[in-house]
C-alpha cells in the first residue's frame, strides 16, 4: 500500500463537487486562495499526511504479530480529510470521532507514544489501556474521544459545543463520522438540535462508499445526497473531494471561519476511500465486494502522492527534504513503539479502578 512517487492528478479538480448557495461564496473565495497558501503551510500539510501514513503503516506491519489486541480500523487512503481539516483549527477547538479515528487523532496532534501504548494495552496508553484503538483520547489537544457505536459521538460533539456555549467558551467543535452514520436516527436528531441553536459545529462526513463491506446502494437512495439531508435540517452543507489536502484545507478554513463567526453549523462531506480491510491491517479485494479497478483508481489518487506532486512541481519539496522528513518520523515512531512495547501492563487493581469517578 505504499504510494508511488509521482502519482498524477488525473481526474481531480480540487474544487468543490457540489456547493451550497450559502457556502458557494466562501468556497470560491478559498479556491482563489489555493495558490496563495504559504509554502511552509503546504509543506506542513504534506508532513501531516506523512505522519498519519507512517504511523498507520507501522501499525499495519506490527499488527500481525498479535500484540496489539484490539479491533483496529486504519485510515490509510483517507488521510487528507483529517490533515486538511485539523490544519484549519485552533487549539481551543474541540474534536470527537468514531471507530476509524487514527488519522483524526494524529492530525490533531494526539500523542503518538500514548497511542502506541494504548494499542499495546499498556498503562501508559492514552486511555490507560482500557480503550484501545477505538477509544483514543487526548484532552491536551481537545480530542474528546472516539467510540465505535456508529453515530453515537455525533450528539456528544453537539453537546460539547452546546456546553461550551453555555459557559461562554470559544471554539468550534468538529465531529468526524462516516457515510453510514448519516443513516442513524441520532445523526438527524443531532443536526436538528445544532440547527435549532445555531451551534458552532462542523459535521465532517468522510464518505468512503462503504459501511463495513456494504456499498451505498442498499443503504441510501442514489437520488438523494448526504448534503441534501443536512440542508433539510437547515444547515449549510457541501460535498468535496477528500483526496487533495490543500483543497480540503481551503474548504475547511472557510467553513471554520464561517462557523466561528456565528453563521451556524455546517456539514462537509468529503469523498474518500479506505484502502485496507474494514477492520484490520490487510487488504480485502479477495472478498469481491469492491473491484480492483475501483481500488486502483483511488490508490492512484493517494493523498500523499498527490500532495508530493503538487509540492514538487512548485519546487517546494526535494527528494532529499522528504527523506529527512521520513527519517525524523520513523525515528519518532521507532521510539514510541519501543517504549510502548517495554511499558508495563496496568496493575491488576486497575481492573476495578475508575468504574466511578
Amino acid at each position, binding site marked *: 500500500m505504499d504510494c508511488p512517487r509521482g502519482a498524477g492528478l488525473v481526474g481531480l479538480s480540487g474544487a468543490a463537487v457540489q456547493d451550497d448557495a450559502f457556502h458557494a461564496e466562501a468556497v470560491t473565495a478559498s479556491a482563489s486562495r489555493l495558490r496563495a497558501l504559504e509554502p511552509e503551510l503546504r509543506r506542513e500539510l504534506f508532513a501531516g499526511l506523512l505522519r498519519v501514513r507512517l504511523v498507520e503503516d507501522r501499525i499495519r506491519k506490527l499488527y500481525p504479530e498479535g500484540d496489539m489486541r484490539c479491533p483496529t480500523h486504519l485510515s490509510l487512503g483517507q488521510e487528507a480529510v483529517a490533515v486538511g481539516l485539523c490544519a484549519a483549527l485552533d487549539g481551543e477547538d*474541540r474534536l*470527537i470521532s468514531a471507530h476509524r479515528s487514527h488519522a483524526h487523532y494524529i492530525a490533531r496532534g494526539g500523542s503518538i507514544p500514548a497511542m502506541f501504548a494504548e494499542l499495546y494495552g499498556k498503562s501508559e*496508553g*492514552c*486511555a*490507560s*489501556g*482500557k*480503550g484501545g484503538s477505538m*477509544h483514543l*483520547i487526548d*484532552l491536551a489537544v481537545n480530542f*474528546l*474521544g472516539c*467510540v465505535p*457505536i456508529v453515530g*453515537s*459521538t*455525533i*450528539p*456528544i*460533539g*453537539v*453537546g*460539547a*459545543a*452546546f*456546553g*461550551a456555549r*453555555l*459557559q461562554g*467558551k470559544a471554539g468550534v467543535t468538529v465531529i468526524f463520522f462516516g457515510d453510514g452514520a448519516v443513516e442513524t*436516527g*441520532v445523526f438527524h*436528531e*443531532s443536526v*436538528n*438540535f445544532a440547527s*435549532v441553536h445555531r451551534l458552532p459545529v462542523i459535521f465532517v462526513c468522510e464518505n468512503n462508499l462503504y459501511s463495513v463491506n456494504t456499498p451505498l446502494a442498499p443503504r441510501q437512495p442514489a437520488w438523494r445526497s448526504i448534503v441534501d439531508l443536512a440542508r433539510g435540517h437547515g444547515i449549510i452543507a457541501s460535498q468535496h473531494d477528500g483526496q487533495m489536502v490543500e483543497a480540503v484545507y481551503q474548504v475547511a478554513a472557510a467553513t471554520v471561519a464561517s462557523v466561528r463567526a456565528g453563521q451556524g453549523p455546517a456539514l462537509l462531506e468529503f469523498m474518500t476511500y479506505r484502502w485496507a480491510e474494514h477492520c484490520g491491517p490487510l487488504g480485502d479485494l479477495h472478498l469481491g465486494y469492491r473491484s480492483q479497478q475501483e481500488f486502483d483508481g483511488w490508490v492512484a489518487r493517494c493523498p500523499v502522492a498527490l500532495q508530493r506532486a503538487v509540492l514538487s512541481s512548485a519546487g517546494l519539496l526535494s527528494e532529499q527534504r522528504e527523506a529527512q522528513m521520513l527519517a525524523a518520523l520513523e525515528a519518532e515512531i521507532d521510539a514510541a513503539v519501543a517504549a510502548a512495547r517495554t511499558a508495563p501492563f496496568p496493575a491488576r487493581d486497575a481492573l476495578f*479502578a*475508575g*468504574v*466511578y*469517578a
Partner: protein
Amino acid sequence: MRNGQHSRQLTYAEALREGIDVAMARDARVYVMGLGVPDPIGVFGTTRGLLEKYGGQRVFDMPVAENAMSGVALGSALVGMRPVMTHMRLEFAMPAIDQICNQAAKWHYMFGGRSRVPMTVRMIVGRGWGQGPQHSQSLHAWFSHIPGLKVVAPATAHDAKGLMIASIEDDNPVVFIEHRWLYNLHGPVPEGHYTVPLGSSRVVRAGRDVTIVASSYATLDAIKAASLLAACGVEAEVIDLRTLAPRDDAPVLESVRKTGRLVVADQGSASCGYAGDVVAKVVEVAFDALRAPPQRVTLPDVPTPTTRALANFYYPTPAHIAAAARRLLGMAPAVDPFEAVDPADKTLDVPDKSFTGPF
C-alpha cells in the same frame, strides 16, 4: 407547612423541586432540560418556577429526540456542565439506551479516567388510571446492571431532596427513578442544602422477626405491610435501599442475621429482576443465617395491562408482602390476597388517599 408537624413538611414533588433549586443556586453549571420542563405544569410541579428563577439558558425544553439529547447532555458534561435531564415517563428514556448505557456509563472507565460525566437523568415511573404497558415500567434493574451508572430510587420527601442534590453533585451519570404515586406524599424536609449520600440504605422501621427490603414506592407498601404484621404480633424490620447502584448491603445483611427471614418487595418484574439480586446477595453471604427461603414480592412477568380489571391483579399489595412474611413464619395459609380484590375497584387504580405521609 402542614398543621400538627413540628418540622417543615413538603410533598415528594416539592422536595424534588427544592433539591433541584438548591443545586442550581449553588452551582451555575447545573442546567435542567427535558420535554415540558419549562411549561406551566412543570413536570408535575417538580420544575415549576425554575425558569422564572434561573432563566431560559438553564431551564429549557428540547426536541423530541431523547437519544441525541442524552448525548448532548453527556457532551456538555464533558466540557464542564452538570445537566439534569427529565423524562416524564421512564419509557421515554428507552430510545436513549445507547447514550446512557454505552456512552455515559462507560465514558470515565473506557478513557482511563480522563473524563467525567456528571449528569442526572430523571425517569418517572407511572401507575394507575390505565397507564398501561408503556407508561408504567420501572426498569431500575436494567440500569443497575450496567457498571458505571448510579441508580437511586427515593421513597420519602426527605430522601428525594437529599438524593437529588447528591446526584447532581456527583461526578457520575445517575439514573434517578421517581414513582409518580409518591409525588403527593409529604414528610419532613430540612430547608437549604443537605445530601443523602449515594449508596446508603436506611432502616425505616426496626423489627426482630422478618426483614423486608424495598425501594421507591415498594417501600411505602412495605411499611403498610409492617403495620399489618404488627397487628398480628409480627415485628418486621423495613429497609429502604434508597440507592440501587451501588447498593449498600450492610444493613440488609445485618438485619437478616438478626431476623433470619427475608422478603424483598420490588416494583419491577420478577425474572432477572432487582429483588432476585438482593436475595442472591443475602444467600451468598448470609446463607447460614436464613431460617426460611427468601421471598420476592414483585410484578408478574407480563406487560402492564391498561384496564383496571386486570391491573388490580397485576400490582401486589401490602397484603402480599405481609402474606410472604407470614409464610416465612409458618403463620399463614396459602391464601392469595388477590382473591379479595374486586376487578372493578377504582380505589386500587389511584394513589391511596388514606395515607399521605409522613412515613
